[in-house]
């Protein structure tokens, strides 16, 4: 995502600005995945391992559709198809497994992620497909101190903020949104009041998958559309919902933005960690494993950081920052 080369010192301000901007963008993409996942998780208790696979499916569908009719129809239809597939999988795959408990459901989605990756390889091959950003948006939106910022990225930000606002209005203002909120905290009560909770489950699952599909449509052409995109992004989305707290959309938003920005800053500034080790008296010219440690940079440990946060959070505060229930 944050593919900046090292900058000279005088460009630090621009680097900071652009990495925060890119971090926001990455964070909003993560939020689009995480919001659906956290809704599904807190509503049904299912940690949907295949959630990022629906993101991948969105990107591939968008590629295929935009090959024939262009990007804009793809932006509408790809998420709809992904959402429909998600709802069908919930109805005919996940629901029968529900009676065997959460472990079986987790295993089902784990197998599903595996199968979806193989199916995508079967249809579109193992190499990345050329899903490019649309012509209409491939220009520089603005230039600041000699650095261009692409219009498409600005468009991604607009779409994701729009989705975010729409999601909050939907949850807070509509009848279905209220029902989902109620089912989040008291699923049995909602069922006793005569609402069809299994159907709510099915459409929430489909809706969450469609959100992931939108993220795939607008993110696939920047991140690269390839069969491994789900397995690289999926675990990060888990990190987001755990840190944000189960069932909390605000938590998911803050955690997504935090991870997005920290990741981008860590990689673009690539600070050396030697001073920290020097505090503990580690020699600069250490040998063996220590030599790897003293030469670490923030860019080098960036891939580990989210998982470190995940593990620490689960150990010390399993309900996350804003959650009300333990995982």
């Amino acid at each position: 995502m944050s593919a900046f080369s090292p900058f000279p010192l005088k460009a630090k301000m621009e680097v900071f600005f652009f990495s925060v901007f890119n971090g926001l963008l990455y964070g909003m993409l993560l939020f689009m995945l995480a919001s659906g996942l956290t809704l599904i998780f807190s509503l049904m208790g299912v940690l949907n391992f295949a959630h990022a696979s629906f993101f991948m499916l969105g990107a591939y569908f968008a590629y295929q559709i935009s090959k024939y009719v262009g990007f804009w129809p793809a932006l509408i239809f790809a998420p709809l198809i992904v959402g429909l597939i998600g709802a069908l999988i919930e109805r005919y795959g996940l629901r029968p497994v529900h009676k065997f408990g959460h472990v079986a459901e987790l295993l089902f989605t784990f197998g599903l992620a595996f199968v979806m990756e193989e199916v995508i390889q079967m249809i579109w091959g193992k190499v990345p497909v050329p899903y490019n950003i649309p012509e209409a948006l491939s220009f520089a939106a603005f230039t600041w101190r000699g650095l261009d910022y692409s219009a498409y990225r600005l468009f991604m930000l607009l779409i994701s903020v729009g989705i975010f606002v729409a999601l909050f209005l939907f949850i807070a203002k509509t009848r279905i949104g209220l029902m989902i909120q109620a089912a989040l905290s008291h699923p049995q009560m909602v069922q006793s009041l005569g609402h069809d909770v299994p159907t709510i489950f099915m459409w929430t699952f489909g809706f969450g998958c469609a959100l992931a599909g939108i993220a795939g449509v607008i993110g696939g052409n920047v991140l690269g559309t390839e069969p491994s995109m789900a397995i690289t992004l999926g675990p990060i989305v888990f990190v987001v919902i755990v840190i944000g707290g189960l069932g909390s959309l605000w938590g998911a938003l803050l955690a997504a933005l935090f991870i997005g920005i920290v990741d981008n800053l860590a990689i673009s500034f690539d600070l050396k960690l030697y001073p920290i080790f020097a505090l503990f008296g580690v020699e600069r010219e250490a040998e063996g494993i220590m030599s790897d440690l003293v030469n670490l940079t923030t860019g080098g440990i960036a891939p580990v950081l989210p998982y470190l946060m995940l593990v620490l959070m689960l150990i010390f505060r399993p309900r996350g920052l804003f959650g009300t229930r333990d995982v």
Partner: protein
Amino acid sequence: MADLMRKSGIWIAAILVILALPLLVKSGFHITMLNQMGVLIIFALAYNMLLGQGGMLSFGHAVYFGLAGYSVAHYLNGVGEATLPYLPVSLIPLMGGAVGLFFGVLIGFVSTRRAGTTFAMISLGFAEMATALTLIIVTFFNGEEGIQTDRWVGPEPLGITFGSDVQVYYLIGTWCLLATGAMYALTRTPFGRMCNAVRDNPERVQFLGYNTHRVRWLAFSLSSFFAGIAGALHALNIEHVGFETVGIAQSGLVLFMVWIGGASTFAGPVLGAILITYLNSNLSDLTEAWYLYLGLLFMVIVMFAQGGLAGLIVMHEPIWKVDLKLFRAMVVPYIMGIGSTLIACVGVIGLIELAYFMSTRATAETQKVLYGFDVDAASVVPWAVCLLIAALGIEACRRTYPPMSASYNTAIAAVKARMAM
């Protein structure tokens, strides 16, 4: 005496089979496959100590397998360069076990406080961290290249050098028997029973005054110990340890083996490891879609056979123990049901093979050999035929499964009636 024979019969049979197999199969390919099977049997059984017996679903158990493998590879290289003291190569798996135990005790302490989804996610976090660390701590993991090693080091007691694969086979076979025996014995101890209790009803166990965290932690540590033994044997077997051995793909593979074989029985993981390794060795050259079939098989088992393949066998045990004649009424429905399943499989596999062929072929050639027929994959005919077979098979399954389960229920009811008498 007869009682002893009956109880230990399966173990004696296992020893005889392990001793005799290399005499029956001569080709190097099969010996390599058997070696892999031995390693993965230990790993799968260790994994099932967590999943089947302790109720802990881990997505990162390969971490202990892989770390033990790396350590052993470094140790062997150290012995080769005469910088480390020599230890008989046949005892090196113990060293791998110690490495696994060390990390298991360490990581297990923080991750076993809760079971269920929390545990699963912590294990995932550690798996991802380990994978990322292979690229960061280069002196130990050596990045994507991994560590090359040589098991032919030090003195040669009785002329055993482990130069040939057959010698490694007997090493793996011996350790496989020892580890399997130890893990089986463990399930019979009060501790093994406590693991089951913690899996089934942790609240009640706590009320009885036990510390569930400590039981899970001990189970986790012991499981990591056996995973370490498997990892060490893996390093000895292929003389290379790569970054993928600690990754989620390796953990996922052992999860597939255990669940397909059956997590609720002791022998299930053994069955799964043998079956999946066999299919992996033989099918991965034959079809590119092998992993897709593996994933589909896993999902079918998750949806329809919670006990795995071993569970399907075990559920018929009461019938053959009471009266074999009860099977007579089951023969026809079972043949119908299994036959329909096979027909459906033929259709689905045909479709998958056609799709893979069309998307991965390098040339414009569209002729493909499918089930011995020369077909033109670009024409609609083979697709339509396969689709028809698949649809017929699935429809037949829908019709033949109810009589099949009805015949099973009748037989079980008869068994219960006899027991009550």
